[in-house]
């Protein structure tokens, strides 16, 4: 379970990006986060991935307060997350396979495990036949599927995606969310930020709306029983 408790984030510029946000995400949930541009969605995810520190409040992940986590523990914490970026963040000159394998190599995975695991996730995202293609030759939708495969390859419990469909066309976008939803069916928690309401409406998942750093709508509010 993930729990945001009264999270406030003030940037050095004086902007208050989060203003006492409270949110509980049970394990295995699929959650859409929507809201106007500048409402604080990305900031919320960055606090969750330890790219930013909250000014106050707590974020508790599986019983652990990550806001007080020691710096050297951060990499190990991140291995439990799979992060998908709007701009894909792939290494263009590498092949599809190499991009996914890279995520395993750099956390010290044994080469023997890498090959079979990469094949497995590329199969999941339906890219096995493009495994040896250079990333720069792929379409946007395909690139994001590589991004998804990379996020999955280290077997994380939570997938975090900040506008993963922001750079790809609508038909492809639907495919991506479909893929995320099938991953979610296998028990992985998925948190996806988007401003594509049409896309959100195609699925029957929980949707929360953020405005000015606060939660203003929640179609399936989760209340913790203390």
């Amino acid at each position: 379970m993930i729990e945001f408790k009264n999270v406030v984030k003030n940037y050095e510029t004086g902007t208050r990006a989060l203003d006492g946000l409270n949110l509980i995400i049970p394990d295995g949930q699929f959650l859409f986060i929507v809201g106007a541009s500048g409402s604080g969605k990305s900031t919320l995810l960055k606090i969750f991935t330890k790219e930013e520190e909250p000014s106050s409040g707590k974020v508790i992940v599986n019983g652990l307060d990550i806001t007080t986590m020691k710096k050297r523990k951060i990499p190990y914490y991140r291995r439990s997350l799979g992060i998908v970026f709007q701009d894909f963040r792939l290494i263009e000159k590498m092949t599809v396979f190499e991009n996914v394998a890279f995520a395993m190599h750099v956390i010290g995975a044994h080469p023997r495990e890498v090959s079979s695991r990469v094949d497995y996730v590329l199969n999941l995202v339906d890219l096995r036949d493009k495994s040896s293609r250079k990333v720069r030759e792929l379409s946007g939708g395909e690139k994001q599927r590589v991004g998804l495969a990379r996020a999955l390859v280290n077997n994380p419990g939570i997938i975090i995606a900040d506008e993963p469909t922001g750079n790809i066309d609508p038909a492809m976008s639907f495919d991506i969310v479909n893929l995320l939803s099938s991953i979610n069916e296998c028990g992985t928690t998925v948190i996806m930020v988007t401003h594509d309401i049409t896309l959100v409406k195609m699925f029957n998942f929980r949707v929360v709306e953020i405005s000015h750093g606060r939660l203003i709508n929640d179609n399936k509010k989760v209340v913790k029983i203390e």
Partner: protein
Amino acid sequence: MNLQFVKYSLKEGIKNVWINGIMSMASIAVMVCCMILTGSALLLSLNLSSALKSVEHQNSMTVFLKKGVTKDQISKVEEKIRNVPNILKYEYYSSEQASEKYREVLGGLYEVLHESGSPFPEAFHISMKDLGLYEKTVEELKSIENVDSVSDRSDTAKRLSDLNRLISTAGMWTVCSLGIVSMFIIANTIKLTIHSRRVEIGIMKSVGATNWFIRAPFIVEGIIIGIASALISSVILNFAYKTFVDVLGGIISFHGIYSKNIFLSILGYFLIAGLIFGVVGGLISIRRYLKREGVSFEG
């Protein structure tokens, strides 16, 4: 630290040097220059020390006579020299002999420099029995009539040791400043590599690579640059110095010290220096980067 980590770091470090080929070569070139300068200062100082030692062990000196002494006066001086107790043997060294030898060395240049007459004074080469009586003997020789001066080893020795001290001090400053320069060169080269690999670094952070995994390839890159510089500069210095000693030894009676051991120790120092500069340069550059970028995944 497991084998996987070591293999990965080595591979990526070599790749870094390769990707940033021009800059790597430039920084190796600068480091080679720094090391050659340092090595030259060291060799110069070693040669001076050895010259100093040989001067200190000399039991011979030269007595110069005044300009325009007659044959008679020379014989009188010879007589007196024979009577100085500490003299082992002596030898007359005429003005003509001196200029003859000089002419051999200079060839045609000699005629240009000295149109007429020998510029050298009449002289005696003298060997002593007891080095302990050096000062006293010099005094005795100086007091002989028509003796102009005695080549005094303490003078030469003092000049040599002054020069040596100067070179040691200057050399130390050279080593220090060039060391700092080298470190910055390496750090800046690596910073460029880091910049060109910032996307990869961002990805590494986002998938949970430890800081050591992120750092190591850049440290390896620094070490490669340092070690390559050490090897290249040792080879160049060895070759250049050997040629220098050979050529100079052919012209004047210069006995440059030369041995394989000197170059092995120079190589050793260079390797250690290269290693340290490489590691420190790598650490400096990535440290700044990791700090400046915080924990963000942005490139």
